[in-house]
């Protein structure tokens, strides 16, 4: 069986005919395999969903327990139609997985979803899975993206908090994954006092704590006067009246995009923190070298840069041009 008969893009998302399932579909489908809980990969309304236990629980928190008709925890090797699938840690957010698809006849395909190779205190590390075809993201698929050590970024946050002790520091971070990672990193960097969180983060932070991730003392950032110098909120909160309770705050944003000044300026960010949950350029190219697949498929992001790199290194590659995935989703 040819590779594109095993997996190919459709309007609803990546479809696997021998297994009759979709991976991270953007529309309701009868059977979906989900890599991780971010809203653009994990949507409500499918007939059946297979994902890691944590991803299923996160979907239930976000969409309600009736987000799908039936669900199955991905564990070990699982037969789906004429294929065998398995889930492997992707290092992106809590519960995130790569999905390996082994058809009865034909090449083994690994769909990595969004992945990251830098150690992340809130999730299991990325695990390399040998394969014939490696399906990768290219969110940061340009050689300018070399994300620094996140603890160095935290040192910059600490320095600013010391330089402006009377100003609260409001850090924008996506509600699932990034927010908890920033809190956890802040703890590692020595922020001991209470950290205030926007209401939209409460349930997801609680869930991380239930999963054994220590986030320290968190207080709600809902009162008129928030008694914490560090406040974490989803980016959307910065456009709302919520932010008006803070007097002269330092506005920060934690994202891989903050590496490019123009991007940080567009957002009006005073303290850009380059903290990413995606592979940067050295990581994505290193991963392709390491796995040495016979072919690389690129799902979304800056695919032109990665396509060119593959061409220069004589690695067969093609863009899938999947639509519906955001740069760095919420």
């Amino acid at each position, binding site marked *: 069986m040819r590779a594109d008969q095993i997996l190919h893009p459709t309007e609803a998302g990546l479809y696997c005919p021998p297994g009759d399932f979709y991976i991270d579909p953007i529309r309701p489908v009868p059977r979906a395999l989900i890599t991780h809980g971010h809203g653009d990969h994990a949507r409500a309304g499918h007939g059946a969903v297979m994902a890691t236990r944590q991803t299923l629980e996160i979907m239930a928190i976000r969409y309600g327990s009736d987000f799908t008709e039936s669900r199955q925890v991905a564990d070990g090797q699982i037969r789906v139609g004429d294929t065998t699938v398995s889930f492997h840690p992707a290092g992106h957010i809590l519960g995130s997985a790569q999905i390996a698809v082994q058809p009865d006849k034909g090449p083994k395909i690994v769909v990595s979803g969004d992945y990251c190779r830098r150690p992340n205190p809130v999730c299991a590390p990325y695990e390399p899975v040998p394969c014939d075809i490696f399906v990768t993201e290219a969110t940061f698929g340009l*050689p*300018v993206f070399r994300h620094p050590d996140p603890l160095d970024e935290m040192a910059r946050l600490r320095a600013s908090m010391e330089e402006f002790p009377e100003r609260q520091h409001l850090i924008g971070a996506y509600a699932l994954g990034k927010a908890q990672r920033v809190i956890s990193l802040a703890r590692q960097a020595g922020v001991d006092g209470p950290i205030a969180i926007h209401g939209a983060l409460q349930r997801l932070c609680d869930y991380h704590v239930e999963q054994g991730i220590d986030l320290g003392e968190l207080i709600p950032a809902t009162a008129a006067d928030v008694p914490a110098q560090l406040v974490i909120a989803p980016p959307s909160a910065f456009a*709302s009246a*919520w932010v008006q309770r803070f007097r002269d705050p330092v506005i920060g944003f934690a994202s891989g995009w903050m590496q490019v000044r123009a991007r*940080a300026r567009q957002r009006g960010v*005073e303290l850009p923190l380059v903290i990413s949950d995606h592979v940067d350029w050295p990581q994505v190219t290193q991963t392709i070298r390491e796995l040495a697949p016979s072919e690389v498929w690129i799902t979304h992001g800056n695919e032109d840069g990665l396509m060119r790199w593959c061409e220069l290194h004589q690695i067969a590659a093609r863009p899938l041009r999947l639509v519906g995935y955001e740069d760095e989703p919420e």
Partner: protein
Amino acid sequence: MKSFANLLERLAFTAARNAKLRILRHYLEQTPDPDRGFALAALTGDLKLRAVTPKLLRGLMAERVDEQLFALSYDFVGDLAETIALLWDGDQDDDVPLRDAVALLSDTGRTALPTAISAMLDRLGPSERLAFLKLATGNMRVGLSARMARLALAEMGDPQVKDLEEIWHGLTPPYQPLFDWIAGGTRPEHAAKAPFRPVMLSTPVDLDQLRALDPADHIAEWKWDGIRVQAVNDDGVRRLYSRTGEDISGSFPDVIEALNFDGAIDGELLVRRGADVAPFGDLQKRLGRKVVGKAMLDSHPAGLRVYDLMIWDGRDLRDLPHQDRRAILQKADFGSDRIDVSPLLDFATWDDLAALRADPPSIVIEGVMIKRRDSPYVGGRPRGPWFKWKRDPMVIDAVMLYAQRGHGKRSGFYSDFTFGLWDGDVLVPVGKAYFGFTDEELRELDRFVRNNTTERFGPVRSVAPKLVLEVAFEGLNASARHKSGVAMRFPRISRIRWDKPAPEADRLQTLKDMIP
């Protein structure tokens, strides 16, 4: 270099002036000489280094990175120095002293330069690479003026801003004597001729306040709408300074050529055509130019109208009473027809002066100046001896069209407003205003914006055109760059007209008719 790179980055992203000052002060307090002096000079544009061309930098990249990947990257990042800083493949992360980078960029010969730059980039981490490349291309863009640098320095020790202004132009990087002085050492002597001397400034006044004063103790003269300057010829060394001590000689070679006297004079810089003084907009065309072409010099000739003498024929007049300085001024010969004396106004009572102020003989007059006859020339803004009594601002009723979120203390509030006037049945944007209202009014405006949003573009919202704002402004220029054809000076919101229906706001033509 690490702390310098960090300083540049913090300044580049910090909008609030006080926060910038604190960041700079901390840097200057914590960094040793001579690095802090070089950093200061780099920020204020006083560091003269070999200019590294974009071509040279592109050449260095071409040897290292695939052309197509470079083009994709540059396209994404949008800034050459930043693209190279991010793309450069190096895993060293030395903390090279800033003085070494400065030495490299001032002492290296042209042929050795590419190799030297390349070797330096190899030693640095990404943030320091960017700082080095910004230094090399002479393009800091962190929004820090020499005036702000002096404010930060003034917070570090006893010398005040006016003391620093006075010696500033005699100093050269890395300013060791300056830092020694701030640390409690002796004041540096003027190293250069034609120094800047602190300018005497006035405070605003109104008729009620004037009534408490005796008109006989005061003189009055027109307040011209140009730029207050200090012109110096010290033993043949000629300089033109703005009132904050920026050296603007380069933009005004015609004025420099006219300084055929020995002294330091205080006056207004104006564009003049024969006996007529041109509007401020004409002067604005001459500002900030590094090179002024002959055509511009012919079409926009600049000159001075003198208010006061500070130094004249080798004598410091500043301690004399104003009337004595004025007597010398009346008889002075400036040796050029580009320089004349600001005439005194004839008045016996404050009401006489009010009548003159209400009907000035030129549109380039923005009010009257009132000065005590016995006042010595004192740098800074002493309260009392000098007053400015400006004309009432012009006002127009406009409709709010867009609102943008503010920063700092106004984070989360829609506080920057674009307003428009009627042209037929469309509203044409004519300007932007972001102050003039109280905190309470800001909350009301913010609520209005949120409840009347029609579209969102990032931090900007367009609002239903229903709120009329009374906008006050100081003047108008015709402008080809603005869609409306006019540019307002110093617009601010003077009243919020909750009561007035939008269709009754003013028309664009009404505004155009106000152009002088």
